[in-house]
């Protein structure tokens, strides 16, 4: 028997190689230069920027519809995966910028922190580019394990440990579902390749029960990673307990990565089962939006509130997924980019205002901050209005995209539920601006310094996100074309 070794196109893998190399570099640098904690952050940032440039320009300029397929069909680089990688890298880059001050003030070891961040990013990138269920699983594991560690990174804080443990237990449980789903699909179709499963289902009976059960299990596994209701229970505790920059990171990148894999698997492998999964996801979308928004209404802890808000946003994105069509998938891409920018921007300010040990974290603590920190508050208001979907911001454009997709596809009811939900969400986003601008502080927050020191890197992160939010809101044409070029099913 002749063993053929597939030709491997390594150029399709450059961004991933760069991220991996920088993660290892940081680990080693930390051993040899113990004192220079900040430098590690800068190294990580350089790595992310390098990878970002590579994603945009390699193997060919972004925007052309080239598809590179390598590793014998395990790995694919198309515009879809490249756009998602763009989102991940922007998210990671911003997170690193936010973390530099945070790591220093909380006296945490920087080396493992940044290395883990990059490893999680690597996992996400693998998820976006996989054309096979096995690498998707590898990617999810790499990402999740890094995140379990990062969640518990504030070792001295009880709440952080609790969050990490919860996340780890529930996360491994969910991964089990995913793996079982993959196994069943493999058992039925004899392959884990996405294209292979697609052609198997097309040529066989679509009422195959094993495939159905496998699909349901996959849905549960992905639902957990997306924090879709009813698989969202871990989210509030984990988001509240994790260090603030990690919460920012988790709410954007990993969620986008889960969507990347989820959408690819369902649209490319299981489109024939469309009639089976659409009604289920319709309900999941409605529940996710409504439960997320309604529970967020009563939260006092801002991190927890934004955790529920991130659940709700996953719901909006699911609306785009249900809608599908030539607006649906691009809508998901656009929304995830917008969400990454506005949410990380908001968390940057929350990290900044939180001060050492995240003392200022409830809505009440924000009373009167609007005039004490005018620029930070204006920026936070901008991000909150964007999250609420008020024009002319990225959040509005994203919602506009998603809901027009829903209406075009005939899901009028879903669109109406969606917009009404965004009205509900306005209430709790406004609650923060109300506290900042319209209330006077009752008591001084214990231990908080009267004036916070300027943090240049964090300010840069805020500036980038604010620019992105306004740019995507007012002049999004370039990005609209990009997402339309990145559409998965309408090439």
């Amino acid at each position, binding site marked *: 028997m002749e063993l053929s070794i597939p030709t491997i196109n390594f150029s399709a893998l450059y961004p991933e190689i760069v991220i991996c190399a920088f993660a290892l570099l940081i680990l080693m640098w930390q051993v040899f230069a113990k004192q220079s904690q900040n430098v590690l952050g800068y190294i990580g940032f350089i790595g992310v920027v390098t990878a970002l440039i590579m994603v945009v320009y390699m193997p060919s300029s972004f925007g052309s519809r080239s598809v590179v397929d390598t590793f014998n069909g395990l790995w694919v680089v198309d515009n879809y995966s490249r756009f998602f990688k763009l989102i991940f890298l922007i998210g990671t880059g911003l997170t690193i910028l936010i973390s530099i001050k945070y790591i220093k003030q909380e006296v945490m070891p920087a080396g493992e922190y940044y290395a883990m961040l990059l490893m999680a990013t690597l996992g996400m990138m693998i998820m976006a580019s996989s054309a096979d269920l096995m690498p998707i699983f590898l990617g999810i594991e790499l990402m999740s394990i890094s995140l379990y560690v990062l969640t518990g990174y504030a070792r001295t804080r009880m709440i952080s440990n609790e969050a990490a443990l919860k996340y780890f237990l529930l996360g491994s449980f969910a991964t089990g579902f995913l793996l079982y789903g993959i196994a069943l699909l493999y058992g039925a179709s004899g392959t884990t390749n996405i294209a292979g499963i697609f052609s198997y289902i097309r040529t066989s009976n679509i009422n195959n029960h094993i495939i159905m059960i496998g699909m349901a299990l996959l849905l549960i596994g992905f639902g957990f990673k997306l924090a879709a209701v009813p698989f969202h229970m871990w989210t509030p505790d984990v988001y509240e307990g994790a260090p603030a920059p990690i919460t920012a990171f988790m709410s954007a990148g990993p969620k986008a990565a889960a969507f990347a894999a989820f959408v690819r698997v369902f649209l490319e492998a299981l489109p024939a089962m469309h009639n089976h999964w659409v009604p289920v996801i319709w309900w999941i979308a409605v529940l996710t939006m409504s439960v997320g928004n309604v529970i967020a209404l009563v939260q006092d802890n801002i991190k927890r509130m934004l955790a529920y808000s991130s659940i709700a946003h996953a719901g909006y994105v699911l609306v785009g997924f249900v809608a599908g069509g030539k607006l649906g998938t691009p809508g998901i891409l656009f929304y995830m980019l917008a969400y990454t920018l506005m949410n990380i921007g908001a968390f940057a300010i929350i990290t900044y205002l939180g001060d050492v040990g995240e003392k200022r974290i409830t809505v009440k603590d924000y009373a009167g901050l609007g005039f004490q920190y005018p620029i930070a508050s204006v920026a936070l208001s901008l991000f909150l209005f964007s999250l609420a979907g008020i024009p002319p911001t990225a959040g*509005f454009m994203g919602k506009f995209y998603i809901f027009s997709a829903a209406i075009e596809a005939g899901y009028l009811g879903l*669109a109406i539920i969606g917009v009404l939900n965004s009205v509900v969400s306005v209430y709790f986003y406004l609650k923060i601006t109300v506290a900042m601008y319209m209330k006077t502080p009752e008591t001084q927050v214990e231990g908080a310094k009267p004036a916070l020191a300027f943090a240049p890197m964090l300010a840069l992160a805020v500036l980038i996100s604010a620019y992105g939010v306004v740019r995507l809101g007012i002049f999004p044409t370039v990005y609209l074309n990009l997402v339309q070029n990145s559409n998965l099913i309408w090439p």
Partner: protein
Amino acid sequence: MNLAQLPILSIVTYLPLAGIALICCMSNKRPDLIRWTAFLTTVVTFIVSLPLYFNHDASTWQMQFVENVPWLQSFGVSYHMGIDGISLLLVMLTTFLSPLALLSTWSAVTERVKEYMICLLFLQVGMLGVFCALDFFLFYVFWEVMLIPMYFIIGIWGGPRRIYAAIKFFIYTMSGSVLMLIAILSLYFMMYKATGEYTFDILKYHQLHIPAATQFWLFLAFFLAFAIKVPMFPFHTWLPDAHVEAPTAGSVILAGVLLKMGTYGFLRFNLPIFPLATQQFVPFIFWLSVIGIVYGALVSLAQDDIKKLVAYSSVSHLGYCMLGMFALNVEGIEGSTIQMINHGLSTGALFLIVGMLYERRHTRLISEYGGVMKVMPLFATLFLMVCFSSIGVPGLNGFVGELLILIGAFKASVPFASVAMLGLLLGSVYLLWMYKRVMYGPITNEKNKQLPDMSFRELAYLVPILVFIVWIGVAPKTFLNKMHTSVTHLIEQVNAEKTIAKTMDYGTEHTHN
């Protein structure tokens, strides 16, 4: 480049942004400099907007001063601005009222002047944009954008219950407008199916024929958004809260301009785009308007807070606007439009007057006053004039609007018009009774003995309004002429569709036979 080529609408709309940029550079410690900059910005905006009025060609209903450049091409969104005779008057009202409202804040707002001025100027951008936008997307952006500054104006500088009022204002308005967004998107795809073109151009929708059943639902969605804004009974509950809590300038802008965005929306969207549904909804809207007129007046009668009284009188006055508009004849719609301007002027002036009293005594309760006329004779004269204007005494602006509306309404429906007349009567009762209790009689309250009469600054912002109150009252033709062709065209649009629908119905019946 000559004057005609300048994008004058954009200049007028975005000029306040230049003021904001200047103010942002100024130190918080120099409030007077900030006030003057803001004031001058609005004055310059008004002056720049004057050519709109003088160069406007009243002989055509076509949109003028049009700017149309692609914005988001993949969605068919364009930056399309333009005005006709109806929006012209509302744009002028906005640029005219803004400097006056700003003047009134000189001594009323002493804290956080910088942020306050930024909010007011930003609000002006939003309002002008709404009246000029001829693209659904653009319109929606402006429509929502102006919620933010108004929310802050009420919430930061308002009265004791300001937070409640601000949030209520925001959520109420937003819940209406998101449904409008859904309707806009539905229209958008309907347009695509009919013509194969993705566009948000409002004028193109005026030509779109929509089946009657669909019109009904779309009309309803738009109706909700605009009825909340107007506000029509029973969607009015946010208004008294917002008005009472807002600072004077906020109330003036709110009553003067913001509410007109609702009535304007009906004129620009509901009537021409959904003519069949418009006909269907006439009785329903007549009912709500007449209930609003009488209810607003009766509730005004029962108020002991002057500002609340004026706020509820708005509900009543806007009821007239809606009644006239849905009479669907030239008199009715012209009356309704002129009444929008009138209400902006006279209710704006009433809020300014309440503001003056409040600044002197820090109370708005009628019982706290009495005999003020003796210490403030000049104030008393102007106050009475404004009351007369609001009541609709002949020779002043209110009369013109109400007369036209009632003529229109009588042509459409005698019973409804008759009940609406009752509102006129009640209007004079609550205003004059309030005037009597505040101004006449002996001075019962010691604190009122030393009240100073109007200052020069106060005169400076009240007298220009009075000039127009008399002008419209004596020579309404100046303003009616500007909108006449636009209104006639609007009515043609409503009726044309009706005839088309009739022939179509006839056609189908015919084939069935």
